[in-house]
């Protein structure tokens, strides 16, 4: 039977309507509309795609069946971080961003999309309070992009090329930043000491050709930079800019970088109310002081308050729209396009729910759990912490002294349903704890690692000195 193709997503596949519309426009068939597509560019066959699952129940069964093969972190004990973090997401966050009005909106004007403009302006404002900064952008794609742009801004503002990288940076983030800025900026690495910036070495490298000092805090291994003010003072003394890449999750407790001299603060908002989504939920923020020199170098959209024809009424609109590539194409600073607005709304709802007290408590829980996990793992014979810095949420352990490799620990503990962390070298393992990681979880990890260390020691003993083993104990 050759049924006409009528699809629920496409109302005008209904045959009679189609015929009527063709008739109205005076076309014999839809082929008429493709008259400008030359015959030799026509595909002339059906695309080679899987058989469709046109009935919703069949589609749901298929996709759910594929996803059922995933084993999420809710069914594993996960200490995975390195850019994506397992924080609790309040139910209200999901409720708000699941609303059709936000989920399916796009580029409406300030009038019919007043709610979207207000929600995003509030996101900017809530982030502004958390970061102690007056200007925050509508989210760009992610923290990688935000940091790349923050550094590019510093290059444009100073007209200089050199950037001193003061911290350990996530390899993927560094990859993105390097490729993004390489035409305009040269990155120079100054190795950290005990996890944080080597201030003296940086000062020695500074000159009036330096555009920026780039600090990541927490660093790749979760180390919190505690000498930002000294770095800011040194940068400013030579006319350079302090760019701080950060995760905002700790600033209920930690002093925000802006209060320690930072000029541009940027990073990722995944920690503020976004699920992990297999690494697929990130939004980038860029924050600056209310200085037109900086604001006019921001490529992203900025929403601002405005008056309306009705006294006392608050409207919203684009601040300095002429900055953007929408207005200026190749004269724009960088480009702006669809990025991560919905995640910004989510982060705003999250910050509103948390309030000052919630963010303070969250920061304290993260610091305490991290310190506890450091003690628990650092106390295992043969395992040591890689540095003595303050850590937030992540830290690295060196397992060489236990005769283990990082990947060996991962492989062994996965068999027990534990993701113990992310290898960052043969013997270095980066372990992440959040407020979702309980004391019992940490104790379980420590016990499992202790077991591995003991097994390794026993094996080493038997390999090194088999003859010493008493005869009667041999199998």
């Amino acid at each position, binding site marked *: 039977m050759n049924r006409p193709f009528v699809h629920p997503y496409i*109302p005008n596949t209904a045959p009679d309507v189609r015929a009527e519309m063709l008739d109205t426009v005076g076309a014999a068939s839809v082929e008429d509309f493709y*008259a400008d597509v030359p015959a030799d560019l026509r595909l002339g066959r059906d695309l080679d795609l899987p058989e469709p699952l046109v009935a919703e129940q069949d589609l749901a069964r298929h996709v759910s069946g*594929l996803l059922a093969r995933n084993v999420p972190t809710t069914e594993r004990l996960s200490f995975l971080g390195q850019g994506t973090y397992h924080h609790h997401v309040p139910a209200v966050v999901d409720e708000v961003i699941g609303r059709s009005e936000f989920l399916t909106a796009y580029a409406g004007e300030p009038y019919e999309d007043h709610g979207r403009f207000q929600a995003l302006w509030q996101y900017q404002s809530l982030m502004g309070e958390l970061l102690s900064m007056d200007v925050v952008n509508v989210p760009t794609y992610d923290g990688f992009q935000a940091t790349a742009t923050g550094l590019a801004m510093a290059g444009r503002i100073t007209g200089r090329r050199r950037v001193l990288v003061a911290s350990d940076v996530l390899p993927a983030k560094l990859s993105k930043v390097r490729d993004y800025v390489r035409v305009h900026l040269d990155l120079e690495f100054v190795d950290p000491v005990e996890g944080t910036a080597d201030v003296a070495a940086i000062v020695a490298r500074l000159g009036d050709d330096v555009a920026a000092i780039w600090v990541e805090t927490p660093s790749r291994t979760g180390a919190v930079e505690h000498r930002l003010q000294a770095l800011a003072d040194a940068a400013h003394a030579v006319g350079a800019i302090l760019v701080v890449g950060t995760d905002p999750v700790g600033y209920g407790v930690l002093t925000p970088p802006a209060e320690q001299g930072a000029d541009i603060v940027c990073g990722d908002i995944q920690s503020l109310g976004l699920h992990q989504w297999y*690494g697929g939920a990130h939004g980038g923020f860029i924050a600056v002081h209310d200085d037109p020199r900086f604001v006019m170098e921001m490529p992203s959209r900025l929403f601002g308050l405005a008056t309306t024809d009705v006294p006392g009424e608050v409207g919203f609109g684009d601040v300095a729209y002429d900055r953007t590539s929408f*207005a200026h194409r190749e004269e724009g600073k960088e480009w702006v396009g669809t990025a991560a607005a919905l995640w910004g709304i989510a982060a705003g709802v999250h910050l509103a729910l948390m309030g000052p007290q919630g963010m303070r408590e969250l920061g304290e829980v993260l610091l305490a759990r991290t310190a506890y996990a450091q003690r628990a793992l650092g106390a295992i014979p043969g395992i040591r912490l890689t540095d003595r810095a303050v850590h937030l949420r992540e830290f690295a352990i060196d397992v060489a002294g236990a005769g283990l490799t990082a990947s060996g620990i991962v492989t062994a503990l996965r068999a027990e349903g534990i993701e113990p962390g992310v290898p960052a070298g043969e013997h270095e393992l980066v372990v992440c704890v959040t407020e979702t990681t309980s004391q019992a979880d940490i104790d379980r990890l420590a016990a499992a690692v202790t077991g591995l260390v003991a097994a390794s020691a026993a094996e080493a003993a038997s390999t090194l000195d088999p003859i010493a083993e008493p005869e009667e104990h041999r199998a």
Partner: protein
Amino acid sequence: MSLPIAPKPAHRRFHQARWDEPVIFELSTPGERGVLVTSIEPGVRDAVGDVVAALPDGLARQAAPALPEMGQMRVLKHYLRLSQENLGADFNVDVGQGTCTMKYAPKVNERLIATPKLSAMHPLQDPADAQGALEIIWRTERMLAEISGMDEVSLHTQGGSAAIWANIAMIRAYHEANGDGEQRREVITTIFSHPSNAAAAKAAGYDVITLHPDADGYPDLAALKRALSPRTAAIMVTNPEDTGIYNPAIREWVDAAHAVGALASYDQANANGILGITRARDAGFDVCHFNVHKTFGTPHGSGGPGTGANAVSAALAPFLPGPRVVREGDRYEVREAGPQSIGAIGPFHGVVPNIVRAYAWMMALGAEGLRAVAETAVLNNNYLMKRILEIPGASAPYATGRRRIEQVRYSWQELFEETGITSEEIGIRASDFGMHYWTSHHPYVVPQPFTLEPTESYSKAELDEYADVLAEIAREARETPEVVRTAPHHQTVHHTHHDDLDDPERWAVTWRAYRRKYPQAVGA
């Protein structure tokens, strides 16, 4: 007795919700809590002591951030009220956002992705625990390879403009690998391509040459040939352009670029009308990208998260961003980017929930369905064009009498000359009827522009309703122009003064800045 069903008015009596909703900071009540945080266990506290007191000098925040303090339901209510003051695609005949392909984002997909089997996945888990996610990424890439005709696809980028960036980053890496990096310093694009093509090329360090159309609105092949040289790194073009006009000489464009050693990059933001009809590879392109959130049915999220797909020829495959998902036997593995890759373009595998939505969308349609998407989108567009051009004062510049693909850039120039009413004013008035409408990117090459893209999602009845609304506003422009000029009348807010937003002394990007700049307004 019949039920009292009154005849419906000619147009919807839409009125946006109006809650006089304060800025959230004004709702704060000290001491209220929206959510509580888990406690530090006594065992942890005993072991680590007061971690805040132990912070190094200057590292402990002195004054708490001035976030609002609100009970949970108050936060919910506030944001749901804001949601009601917002017109999503699920509510209006959203054909007015040309170049953005507003279409139905199927609800079943929202249900499918909501599972913790996706949302609670960490990207560095054992690939053995992520076989479902990896298989969907891999399968989606293969389908997009078939749709584009290209050899390899990456779904890493987080939106269309990010994908445009990836295109130019790959082109740059390709020329550098061939020793041509220093020589090829120019990128050629057209005025009717998305501004990001020009802006991304500039951000990558290129000099940008922008071509204008010929007299009929077709991209000007002679102008291209004059602009091409051994300095050209790439052409970055879209087809159909934002006018909805398909460039029949596209193969000649690509060949001319190749003849000088340049690459050809295809912005397929406007691909919706050509799915299954013609493919990037068939015209000889080296690289193209799709906007997954446009063409492949994922929701636009108030402006993201989007997803881009970069599709490339075998020659460019080594430059794709990484990591890649590979199939080995019946297993899916993650392989790090190779030595020539441009590396990470963003974290991990891109916006994975969107990839799953796009996969489900394609699986619901198949080959016949994708072709029906394209054909219906162009049918709808040409039908709507017929209806719009019947409105006195409206026109479609260029290519008069020719068909269009998926959208049209129209002009109200005649109406403007007659009434003084601008396209922007008409757009604002359209919102009073519950319709959205967008003018065009700048600069306004078409005078008093408006750009409509009906896609496949809207029924004939809805297209008629939309055209009727524009006809009504055009009538108003002649008969009661003040009604149009002073719009909006049925929105949450009234005409907004944009002067406030362009003056550094007056703009207020955050509540913090507002309090500082306008102390009297907040009672300080």
